[in-house]
């Protein structure tokens, strides 16, 4: 918009400047020409008056030398032609105008041979003399170029100032619009607190006010929606309590554990719904996978040492951003490490490797490997001091990010779990 405005103003001001500068330029040329010719005419008249005075003062026909002495030295471009081919002054050309002036007895002028010539007839006793004046083109155009240059410069200044004003005007319109667009992007990314300053032309102010109203309304509606979801989920906990207490009364241990397990899964599901509803609607958080894995490894190392497990951690020296909050990513890593401790005997080592590309995390152990009959990611398949929900949550979180999680045999013969966290979040990195 600013560029278009500048182009428009440039075109208009250039046209206006041209419309003024060209006629003014022509006028300047003509004025210079007129000034030079008028000066030449006056000079010719002065010489003619002097010549007449000499002739009147002389008793007879004065000689050429006497006339020349009486006139004194003539400037360049001025000559006096007496009847009988006698002439005074350095004359270059001028024969045609002199011949016409003496023949017809009138002043004659013409643009010839790179200049302007004037022949002025003076009647004397022996015939018709002539005063000749020549003005070269340089003199006819004297002062024209600086004047035209000044005009062009003024025109350029006019165009430049107009451009500056157009840019300022464009900015006053486009800056609020640009800020509005940026705010709309922030709102779309989940920053519901975003607002814009109501500035700029009235139309832009109206749009800004509407945007702020929309953002406020969106915030209220979304908060109400989230609160409603959370409230419904909370209310589900009361019948779930009843169900749990009833299940605890079932005599058959297998049936009791089965139903209690289902209640736990239902509870976990409700907790997830509440957590999702309560999750701040800000732009997605990012966490550094390398830092989180290193941190969680330090936390678990004390138990690993206690159980005689060798633990190796390979993380790149650069940040590996993942589109998850640090707490959520930490819980995923804990679930993977806890899985190793649950399913391998004390003494079995394990390794964690963070891959920058992917990005990914591979947790491998030196245990007995996978039991082909069990899907480690299936809910409730653990039964060994764990709810079995951890790996299921790992997989579903990875899938939510556009990645995945799968089990494979580890190179050293144990089990591996590979987690891919979807497209790199490098562009979204906001962490410190």
């Amino acid at each position, binding site marked *: 918009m600013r560029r278009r405005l500048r182009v428009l103003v440039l075109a208009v001001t250039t046209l206006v400047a041209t419309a003024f500068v060209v006629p003014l330029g022509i006028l300047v040329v003509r004025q210079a020409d007129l000034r030079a010719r008028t000066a030449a005419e006056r000079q010719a008249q002065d010489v003619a008056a002097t010549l007449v005075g000499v002739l009147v003062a002389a008793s007879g026909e004065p000689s050429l030398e006497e006339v020349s002495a009486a006139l004194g030295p003539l400037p360049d471009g001025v000559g006096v032609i007496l009847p009988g081919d006698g002439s005074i002054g350095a004359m270059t050309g001028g024969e045609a105008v002199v011949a016409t002036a003496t023949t017809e007895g009138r002043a004659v002028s013409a643009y010839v041979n790179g200049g302007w010539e004037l022949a002025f007839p003076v009647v004397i006793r022996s015939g018709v003399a002539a005063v000749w004046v020549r003005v070269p083109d340089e003199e006819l155009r004297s002062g024209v170029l600086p004047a035209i240059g000044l005009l062009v410069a003024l025109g350029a200044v006019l165009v430049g100032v107009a451009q500056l004003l157009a840019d300022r005007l464009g900015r006053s319109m486009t800056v609020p619009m640009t800020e509005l667009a940026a705010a709309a992007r922030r709102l779309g990314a989940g920053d519901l607190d975003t607002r814009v300053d109501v500035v700029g032309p009235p139309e832009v102010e109206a749009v800004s006010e509407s945007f702020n109203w929309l953002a406020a309304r969106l915030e209220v509606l979304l908060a109400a929606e989230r609160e409603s979801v959370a409230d419904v989920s*909370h*209310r589900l*906990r*009361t*019948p*779930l*309590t*009843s*169900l*749990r*207490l*009833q299940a*605890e*009364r079932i005599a058959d241990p297998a049936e009791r554990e089965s139903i*209690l*397990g289902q*209640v*736990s899964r239902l*509870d*976990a599901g409700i907790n997830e719904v509440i957590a999702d509803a*309560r999750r701040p609607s800000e732009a997605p958080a990012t966490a550094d996978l390398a830092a989180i894995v290193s941190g969680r490894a330090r*936390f*678990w190392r*004390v*138990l690993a040492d*206690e159980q005689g497990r060798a633990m190796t951690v390979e993380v790149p020296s650069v940040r590996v951003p993942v589109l998850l909050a640090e707490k959520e990513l930490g819980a995923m890593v*804990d*679930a993977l*490490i*806890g899985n190793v*401790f*649950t399913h391998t005997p004390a003494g079995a080592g394990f390794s964690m490797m963070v891959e920058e590309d992917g990005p990914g995390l591979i947790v491998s152990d030196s245990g007995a490997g996978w039991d082909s009959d069990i899907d480690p990611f299936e809910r409730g398949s653990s039964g060994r*001091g*764990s*709810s079995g*929900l*951890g790996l299921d949550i790992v997989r579903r979180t990875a899938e939510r990010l556009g990645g995945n999680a799968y089990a494979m045999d580890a190179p050293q013969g144990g089990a591996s779990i590979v987690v891919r966290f979807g497209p790199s979040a490098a562009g979204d990195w906001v962490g410190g």
Partner: protein
Amino acid sequence: MPRVILVEDDHTIRRLAADALARAGFDVDSAAGAMEGLQLVVKDHPDLVVLDLGLPDLDGSELLRMIRAVSQVPVIVATAREDEGSMVELLDAGADDYVVKPYSGEQLTARVRAVLRRGGTETAGADLVVGGLVLSVTARDVRLDGELMDLSPKEFDLLRVLMERRGEVVTKRELLADVWREPYGGSERTVDVHLSWLRKKLGETASEPRYLRTVHGVGVKLVEP
């Protein structure tokens, strides 16, 4: 026999929770509404009240304030909300502890026992002392032989539960219920790793224990060395 009043509007929960408490050795009376519950508190002078927040005639938090106006009886609040703000509000309003729905009978009775222990044999808010280990509930700090320990909030809660039940074997599942408030969820490995950190900070190891004794296949107990 400690007398417990259960204020809960849901008939099934009231019956089953009262039954679980009775089987754990408490003398239980129950009320389905706030006014009935308040009358029981005033009339029966119970040792503890379990109060559900979602009552039909009055909000449970209002009832809690009314109880506090007439009695210092320990109150455990049963709530469906577990966000920190709600918890702090309830504790500030005079609750002694809380259980989050869906709770188990075992979790409820363990909470009742713990609160009664704090309010009975020990004065509420008093320090817990086991050997050279002194835990201040109110200041939320622990000193080992006079030296202040640097504990995470979970390590503090874990140690508090174990000190409250010193000499008893506490199962990891109970710890998940009491400390992590996940009676059926969570991983026992989480308990293991926190116990490892506690051991390290207590200056002992699993092979050379002092305070923390692992009872294989059962759980862990805290004893005086």
